[in-house]
């Protein structure tokens, strides 16, 4: 095997640096359209999420927030900053440290007619609530013969790249995408953060809302990229290309856009699809892209084994077999517990691992 040179990112400050509270420069690849000045002014993803909650709560008094440290503190990532001041302690509830309680209480509130938005402080802390989500929240509609609605949104900051201790960098989305009765969404931009969260809160079904925490401080306009705004179950072709499709979501969308820019410099046209919705998956958008390019690579932080990439690769192979120039590739985490911070750079899919998979797609 020959020595290879790591390729530099075409867009600076994307994957190597951990999230810093200092605002990052406006993200390249942000939706390019004219819009009202306020909405066009770049805001951080975390602020966009907070704005979505504020606007939703102002519009509908049945929306209540509950979670650990969401009120006085404004959340450990400050997503709910100022909301308790504005809406009061009755609607922005600092909960006991009890994740199962947060989701279980949200279910009861929903039965009483409220539309709770829960915050699970970190991805790795959702497991105490897993039972309530999987055996109760996802099933109460069917269990009640369609009588109950469960308009519960569960926000979960997820993914690595922030130099954290154990349980603060995980990507548990496949568990929830695997569970019938749930919708699973994840934004990658500020505009989608606002739009998808508004759509999630307005949805009459439970939504697990994964927020890519290392992108919290990346900025973009609030204005939706499309007019009318994209429905929540639709994926987006964020960067058109003709040679290969990168299928990404949440934190790896930026990684893939960087990879596409680097590949372009080498004369390769890479299409990047932002899945946005992980349950349901937007098969028409994915298959249309693959039929154009003939090659696809799925990129996520979660372990590849039995991950979403496996479902996507299998289904795309079933539906697009005769359009495939190469097997659908997968880039993701190894089948190991998420590593300690000093090693996460080695573990996380980065530009080079994505381009390596692209190279292999052309090697067939």
């Amino acid at each position: 095997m020959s020595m290879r040179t790591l390729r530099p990112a075409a867009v600076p400050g994307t994957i190597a640096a951990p999230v810093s509270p200092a605002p990052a420069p406006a993200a390249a690849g942000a939706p390019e359209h004219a819009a009202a000045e306020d909405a066009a002014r770049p805001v951080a993803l975390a602020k966009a999420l907070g704005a979505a909650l504020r606007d939703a709560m102002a519009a509908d008094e049945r929306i209540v927030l509950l979670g650990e440290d969401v009120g006085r503190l404004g959340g450990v990532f400050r997503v709910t900053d100022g909301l308790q001041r504005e809406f009061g302690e009755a609607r922005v509830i600092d909960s006991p440290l009890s994740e199962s309680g947060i989701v279980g209480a949200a279910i009861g509130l929903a039965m009483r007619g409220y539309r709770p938005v829960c915050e699970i402080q970190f991805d790795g802390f959702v497991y105490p609530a897993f039972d309530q989500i999987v055996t109760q929240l996802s099933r109460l509609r069917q269990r009640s013969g369609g009588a109950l609605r469960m308009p519960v949104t569960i926000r979960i900051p997820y993914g690595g790249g922030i130099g954290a201790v154990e349980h603060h960098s995980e990507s548990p989305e496949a568990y929830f995408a695997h569970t019938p009765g749930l919708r699973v969404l994840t934004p990658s931009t500020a505009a989608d953060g606002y739009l998808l969260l508004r759509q999630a809160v307005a949805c009459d079904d439970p939504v697990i809302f994964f927020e890519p925490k290392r992108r919290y401080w990346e900025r973009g306009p609030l204005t939706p990229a499309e007019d009318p705004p994209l429905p929540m179950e639709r994926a987006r072709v964020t960067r058109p290309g003709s040679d290969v499709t990168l299928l990404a979501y949440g934190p790896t969308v930026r990684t893939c856009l960087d990879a596409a820019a680097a590949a372009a410099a080498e004369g390769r046209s890479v299409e990047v699809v932002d899945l946005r919705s992980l349950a349901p998956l937007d098969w028409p958008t994915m298959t249309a892209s693959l039929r154009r390019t003939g090659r696809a690579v799925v990129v996520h932080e979660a372990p590849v084994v039995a991950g979403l990439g496996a479902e996507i690769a299998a289904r795309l192979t079933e539906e697009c077999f005769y359009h495939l120039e190469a097997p659908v590739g997968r880039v993701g985490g190894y089948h190991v517990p998420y590593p300690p911070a000093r090693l996460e750079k080695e573990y996380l899919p980065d530009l080079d691992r994505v381009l390596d998979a692209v190279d292999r797609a052309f090697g067939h």
Partner: protein
Amino acid sequence: MVRYVASDELSDPPPAEHGVRLLNPDGTPRAHPEFDALLDVEDLKSCYGAMLRARHLDDAATTLQRQGELALWIPLRGQEAAQVGSVRAAAPADFLFPSYREHAVAWERGLPPVEVMRLLRGITHGGWDPAAYNLANYALVLATQTLHAVGYALGIQLDAERARSAGPGMAAVATVAAATEGRANIGRPTIGSDPENARGAPARGHPENIVGPPIVGRPTNTVGLPNVGRPTNLGDVLDAAVVVYLGDGAMSQGDANEAFVWAASFNAPVVFFCTNNQWAISTPAARQARVPLAERAAGFGFPGVRVDGNDVVAVHAVTTWALERARAGAGPTLIEAYTYRMGPHTTSDDPTRYQPAEALDRWRALDPIDRVARALAPVCDPGWFDERLAEARATATRLRAQTLALADPPPDAFFDEVLVTETDEGRAQRAAFREYRESFQV
């Protein structure tokens, strides 16, 4: 080495350990310093009918299971007083969260008995509209429902908060909201609207229950523990409260303990009704607790009361007190109804492998229905008892016929109501399933 109390030691406590008792096993009244009987003769007669019906329905269901007509049955034998006494303390606006053995609660709430059979015949995982009876669907995963109950109780508090903050002119905001789609999940109490289930109004709160000559009891006595005593003049600050049923086994679950924390922290209007039937399948209550379960409440910061679960009068009195406390804004209560599971855990269980036969004999002498019969014997002639028996048998016969007449659901019913917002994926899977099935019908 930890020494666990043997199950046979635990299941034979001295009478004082039965907790609040207002009706002795021989049917004579018994005074209690904190609680008065709130059921008059007519109420007690009605309770007797309900308990007897429950037993006959229960037995009919066990028979149906043995004949292969139900996938499973979860007998309630022995717990008729705990269930009937507590549900009759609840007002129509109160919301009840059962576990999975509270069939008599469901039936008393107006749910047609056959609805429970639909679940255990394998037609549905739940089936009824909780808002139609203010009764949640059964929860089979232990203690999950305790958190739903607390959340629902928080919603009751939020409704009151919204009505208050909206000012007197807007006091009806919660009511208005209830009438709109957002509150489609609640309201519409239809208790007793089904002729099959017209069993008279709930006994709670009728002035005659308090001022009329009670069959047992004594004048109100509020001396004693703080917060204990019947709060006849507290007045309701909330328009409803919540009762959630759980068992002695569920008391070991994390969710139950989280629910206690939440309820205490928010002073939620919820009554935790723990039916301690002393067995979690084969696990004795002694493996769940080294102290009476009611004592756990003190550690969370709210009152806990053990009540004789085979005494319908005491169960009703204590639950009424706890619900009035909750509606008055005084917060949660834990009630431990001390009783005994006289049958198997389910029809799949064989309690002879672990349950001492003599315990069953001892508790048979404490039978909750016999106790009420002894209390009523001086005031009801044998003909009245015969009528109740005939009525209970007729109800059971009807249930049997209704169960046998239940149709299987259509083959693709499992695609129904997975989501409100059905997905393209869901539609495509259902279409593929139908196409596959039809491919066999050439």
